[in-house]
């Protein structure tokens, strides 16, 4: 729900993995440092220091490319065992201020402090306190954005990076967005950006000035959302993970209608993994698996399957989802797909009948993966089938429109907006 006062905070640790490495390697401060999952040619950059970004190195870039751009950088391999305690500490600090904390990865989260202001002061004061505690208790810096909703707070914290706090007063969302480049708007990916560029659109304000009808004509329902978001309008609430959900789902809208069966199945597989992780996190399993498909322009269908026993493992969710998908897709002439979603419903207590010969290893593996994802973000553990297809990045949870790379800070934005508070 939109608030009349800014009470939604987005907190994001600055270049988290790199900052953690600098804590134990202070001699590397000021140098380009790149932390990657695997240092071979197939490794991918997880995080890079702001010095490395000057050379054009970005998160999610292949290590081989980073080496060409910045051969002099120090390359380190990700060490989750070193980052995990800090991540836990970070989330614990946040929960000191409100139970309404929605983690968005190992190093970022949304908080709604509307109910805490009597205790701890207004949202900007709480954001400042959190940033101070992160610095004192973990030894690294965090940026924060404060506004009336998650969308604006997210853009604001990015705008404040590194080590900044940006407060957007209620009613000034559109004005805050107007001068910013379109790529800072979370739902604008490379393809949308390219299309917008051909229309001469450079800033978020340019989008806001377009007649919504023109955007709808160009991008369909995506266009209507784009028009609203360019004005800073966004009403998904901060969801603390503890409310017992009635169902869990993930869906994804493709930038271009997707014709490839392999790609669609890979996306479904990724969604199954993440739905399974959510179920594990909530201690639930599902009797019913649902599939959602949308064909352009707005032909949406849902299919569901209810099994004899409940399912909770990614493989089983995927198998059920893939069966539904194959049948529904076949019925619709295997047309390109605009949106694909997988859900679990009819949730019940998580339990699985083990089979003779089982050792419980499958369950322990699934729980370990879910645990890693909960701590380090969804991209920390992926199926090989998903790699190279940017599935994790594009895979948008139903409630979370921000497909930001993780740990997310694409560019070092200018810090000249008047809303920047001294830190």
């Amino acid at each position, binding site marked *: 729900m939109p608030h009349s006062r800014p009470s939604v905070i987005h907190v994001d640790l600055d270049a988290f993995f790199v900052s953690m490495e600098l804590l134990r390697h202070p001699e590397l401060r000021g140098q380009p440092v790149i932390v990657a999952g695997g240092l071979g040619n197939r490794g991918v950059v997880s995080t890079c220091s702001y010095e490395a970004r000057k050379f054009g190195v970005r998160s999610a870039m292949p290590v081989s490319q980073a080496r060409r751009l910045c051969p002099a950088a120090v390359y380190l391999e990700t060490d989750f065992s070193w980052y995990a305690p800090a991540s836990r500490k970070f989330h614990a600090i946040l929960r000191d201020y409100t139970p309404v904390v929605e983690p968005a990865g190992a190093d970022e989260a949304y908080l709604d402090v509307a109910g805490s202001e009597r205790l701890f002061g207004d949202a900007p004061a709480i954001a400042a306190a959190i940033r101070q505690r992160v610095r004192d208790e973990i030894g690294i810096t965090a940026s924060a954005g404060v506004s009336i909703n998650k969308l604006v707070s997210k853009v604001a914290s990015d705008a404040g990076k590194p080590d900044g706090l940006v407060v957007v007063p209620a009613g000034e969302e559109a004005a805050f967005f107007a001068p910013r480049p379109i790529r800072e708007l979370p739902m604008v990916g490379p393809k949308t950006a390219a299309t917008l560029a051909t229309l001469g659109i450079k800033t978020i304000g340019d989008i806001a000035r377009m007649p919504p009808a023109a955007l709808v004509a160009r991008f369909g329902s995506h266009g209507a959302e784009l028009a609203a978001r360019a004005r800073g309008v966004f009403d998904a609430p901060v969801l603390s993970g503890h409310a017992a959900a009635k169902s869990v789902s993930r869906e994804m809208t493709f930038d271009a209608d997707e014709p490839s069966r392999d790609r669609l199945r890979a996306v479904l597989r990724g969604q199954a993994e993440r739905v399974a992780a959510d179920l594990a996190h909530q201690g639930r*399993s599902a009797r019913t698996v649902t599939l959602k498909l949308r064909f352009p322009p707005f032909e949406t269908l849902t299919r569901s399957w209810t099994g004899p026993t409940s399912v909770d493992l990614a493989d089983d969710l995927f198998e059920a989802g893939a069966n539904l998908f194959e049948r529904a897709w076949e019925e619709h002439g295997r047309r390109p797909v605009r949106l694909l979603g997988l859900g679990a419903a009819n949730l019940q*207590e998580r*339990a*699985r*009948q*083990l089979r*003779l010969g*089982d050792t*419980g290893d499958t369950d322990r593996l699934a729980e370990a993966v879910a645990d890693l994802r909960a701590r380090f973000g969804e991209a920390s553990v992926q199926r090989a089938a998903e790699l190279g297809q940017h599935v994790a990045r594009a895979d948008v949870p139903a409630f979370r429109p921000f497909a930001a790379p993780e740990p997310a800070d694409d560019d070092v934005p200018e810090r000249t907006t008047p809303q920047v508070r001294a830190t």
Partner: protein
Amino acid sequence: MKVQVLQENLQRGLSIVGRAVATRSTLPITANVLLMTDKGRLKLAATDLDISISTWVGAKIDEDGATTVPSRLIGDFVSSLPPATVSLEIPERGRQLKLECARNESSIHTMDAEDFPRIHSFSEGVSLILDPKALRKTIERVEFAAASDDSRPVLTGVHVKADGARLTFASADGFRLAVSDITLPAAPSDAVEVIVPARALREVARLVGESSEPVEMRLNPQRTQVLFSVGDTELVAQLIQGTFPNYNQLIPADYNTKATVSVEEFKRETRIAAIFARDGSGIVRLQLVPGNGMPGKLTISARADEIGDNNGEIDAKIEGDASKIAFNSRYLQDVLNALSGEVELQMTSPSSQGVFRPVVAEGEPKDYVHVVMPMFVQW
């Protein structure tokens, strides 16, 4: 054919063979029962092609012959007749069976006995003589653990194997395993290792009932069929071909915790917990709590999200560490229903096998073990 038979004998015979009548078949004659004269008696037989049951009843044979009539019809009809002599007659070249009993007369359309599937009986092959009580007990301890779906046909059967004078029956449906032994008076003359359909054994147990006559089990030389001979009745079943999984490795030799409890109490608390479990995933949680000098206890609990919860406690002798394990309520009830007296539950961890064994007196054979896989739950 002309035969006179007592109504109660005919009724009993029809109800015995009626168990093998096909309920859904593409071959209409298998819904019929075969009536034929055989060495001075009346033979009744039925088959669904997997199992056939034949039984012989005493009768006064005036003229030999054979025919088939719809099983359901003649069964309902005969059971309604008064207890008197029933006369069955098919006139020469007739197509109808004429039945007379007291002042009731009826006729039933027949189908030709020549078209009835041939029921094999065989007297060659290896033969085993089984104690009826031991056989029935063993069947009741294993048949329920066989698979009820056909996805792996061998698992719908019971593995029967002789090792010396010990005959071992085993069944497993993927989630549980039941193994029970019978001691034979002598080792069989030839190796015995076959898979008998669980359904056939259920019928054998029913035929045995309270009888004290030894049961003969015979395998044909091709090892494609098994014949059980119980009094005046024979049951022939097609054996299931295939390899039964090697189950011995699934019975753990060691345990960390062992609880010894009364079957009656355990059964009662499980039945109560199952009422609460049935709206959820059927989970019954067990906690094994050592007494440290005092008697230990076993708690049996269940909960259902929108209903409530239940917690029962019984005395138990606990050896080893405190422990917990969750089972599907049906599997737990099934094994407890097959037991009496006292039972031991042995376990190693919440995600490995629960092993149930009856407590037997010193010197008695340890002839039963039942393994149930637990449910992986969040405690």
